[in-house]
């Protein structure tokens, strides 16, 4: 593995064009409050980067430049008036384009979604961020309807991995992942049905949290898998994810699955280290699969060893039928998505992207009994995982079997045969955070996944935060300056 750190030029505090962009949300918040930075300058700089790099990286479907500058000015005016709405005030964020946001269309990167879907409204989660003073840079690229792969023939931007544009930025929250990594936002919103927050966080080299099912209300978001979907924060650090989540989380009556569970001040629960933390390592499938990249495995185990060095303990365990759990998640997701899309698939098949329609159409190949059986398996799997998490505080796995694959090697069929390490935790609704753990020999990010008990977001973020106090993997920035110059 290389340990090369690509550095960003560090320059003066405030003039647009000279503002540091490799800031975490926490760092930017501190600068905004100390008066060494304004949101106007930060937002202008981020917007300029986004406008300069969007053709090359495809992070945004639309950049809401004017509205963002208005939000930034309002944030600065509030600071000047002594009004502090919290850690997100004045912070530029990316909003995945299946999440409704006033002032911009929601397209789901699809020609099929009604053009007026969500028009003029904020999703609950967007409204909460807006009320907290956040700045929205734009609507971030997503895989069409949060599944499939980009189809360049449909007229939407195709996202590219900023570490190597020939490689995938993963999906479906590709745009937010790319924007966060390339400093075209300081973080943002993704959604996760089988790994769509953690996959992009994994391959783009930042932190991403899949929350407990029901932790963040989903009204105002285009569904994929009703019983699996969640909205999660994506940002460079675990602390930043905590700052986002404490605004995003909390009950709303408009989402029947929203949980009536108190929202802690996550950012205040990350200190204290991991002394006494009990880690379970499920070795079969997650650590011994023939498709697991040796560098990914080594980097994850090295990070576990670092946690053990800080006082945690780890044991190897077995989760039976892990391969089947990936299929169960897929069958439930495809069945639920097919029910939502069925009429459009019948009448507008070719308007869907060429990688989306065979994935959704797979729903026609599963029977109703298969769907029920997948849900019976879900019970079995959730009970098995609950038994493990009755004894251990967290489960740790690689976030994915490999670093980012070449984009031209990916298709909807190849995924069927490959292992996956993320959908397992959507199946049982648990929080799981993807944490950077280094770079591969080819300079691509490596990532570890930490899974916890229901609503134990603070625990998994604390593990990630502890690691990020002694490493700088999450602070590495991709070499995008050459793209900018071009």
């Amino acid at each position, binding site marked *: 593995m290389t340990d090369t750190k690509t550095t960003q030029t560090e320059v003066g505090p405030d003039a647009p064009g000279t503002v540091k962009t490799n800031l975490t949300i926490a760092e930017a918040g501190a600068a905004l409050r100390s008066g060494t930075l304004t949101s106007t300058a930060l937002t202008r700089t981020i917007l300029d980067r986004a406008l300069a790099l969007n053709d090359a990286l495809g992070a945004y479907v639309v950049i809401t430049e004017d509205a963002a500058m208005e939000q930034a000015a309002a944030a600065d005016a509030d600071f000047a008036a002594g009004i502090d709405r919290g850690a997100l005030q004045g912070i530029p964020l990316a909003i995945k384009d299946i999440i409704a946001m006033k002032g911009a269309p929601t397209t789901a990167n699809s020609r099929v979604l009604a053009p007026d879907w969500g028009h003029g409204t904020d999703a609950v989660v967007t409204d909460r961020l807006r009320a907290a003073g956040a700045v929205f840079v734009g609507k971030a690229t997503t895989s069409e309807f949060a599944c499939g792969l980009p189809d360049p023939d449909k007229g939407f931007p195709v996202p590219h991995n900023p570490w190597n544009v020939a490689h995938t930025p993963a999906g479906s929250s590709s745009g937010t992942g790319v924007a966060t990594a390339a400093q075209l936002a300081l973080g943002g919103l993704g959604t996760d049905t089988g790994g769509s927050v953690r996959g992009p966080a994994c391959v783009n080299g930042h932190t991403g949290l899949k929350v407990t099912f029901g932790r963040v209300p989903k009204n105002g978001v285009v569904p994929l898998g009703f019983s699996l979907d969640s909205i999660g924060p994506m940002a460079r650090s675990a602390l930043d994810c905590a700052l986002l989540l404490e605004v995003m989380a909390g009950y709303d009556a408009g989402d*029947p699955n929203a949980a009536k569970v108190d929202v802690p001040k996550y950012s205040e629960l990350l200190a204290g280290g991991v002394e006494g933390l009990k880690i379970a390592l499920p070795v079969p499938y997650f650590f011994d699969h023939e498709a697991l990249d040796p560098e990914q495995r080594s980097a994850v185990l090295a990070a576990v060893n670092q946690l053990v060095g800080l006082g945690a303990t780890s044991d190897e365990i077995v989760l039976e*039928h892990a391969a*089947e759990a990936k299929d169960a998640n897929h*069958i439930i997701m495809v069945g639920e998505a097919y029910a939502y899309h069925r009429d459009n698939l019948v009448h507008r098949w070719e308007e869907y992207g060429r990688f989306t*329609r065979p994935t959704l159409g797979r729903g026609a190949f599963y029977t109703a009994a298969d769907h029920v059986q997948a849900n019976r398996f879900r019970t079995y799997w959730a009970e098995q995982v609950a038994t493990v998490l009755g004894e251990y505080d967290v489960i740790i796995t690689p976030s994915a079997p490999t670093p980012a694959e070449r984009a031209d090697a990916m298709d909807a069929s190849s995924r069927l045969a490959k292992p996956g390490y993320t959908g397992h935790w959507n199946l049982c609704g648990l929080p799981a955070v993807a944490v950077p753990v280094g770079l591969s020999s080819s300079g691509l990010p490596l990532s570890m996944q930490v899974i916890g008990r229901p609503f134990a977001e603070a625990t998994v973020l604390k593990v990630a935060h502890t690691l990020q106090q002694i490493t700088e993997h999450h602070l590495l920035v991709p070499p995008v300056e050459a793209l900018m110059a071009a």
Partner: protein
Amino acid sequence: MTDGSAVPADSTSSEQIVTGLLAAAQLTVSAEEKAQMIKDFPKVRAGADALYLPELEFVEPATRFDPARYYTA
């Protein structure tokens, strides 16, 4: 408990099943897409069939219906 296996024995049966399922679903796909679906079909079915495990014989599905949810107090 039966496993409900529907894994086709050969590509001919895959083609027949995929053709029938697409027709039943009223999906009009290109010849290229259909060929790929036929190729993938054994893997798709194997993933579903693998879930009919003996361990699940007495397991309830992770779905629940609450009739009271639709009535306010």
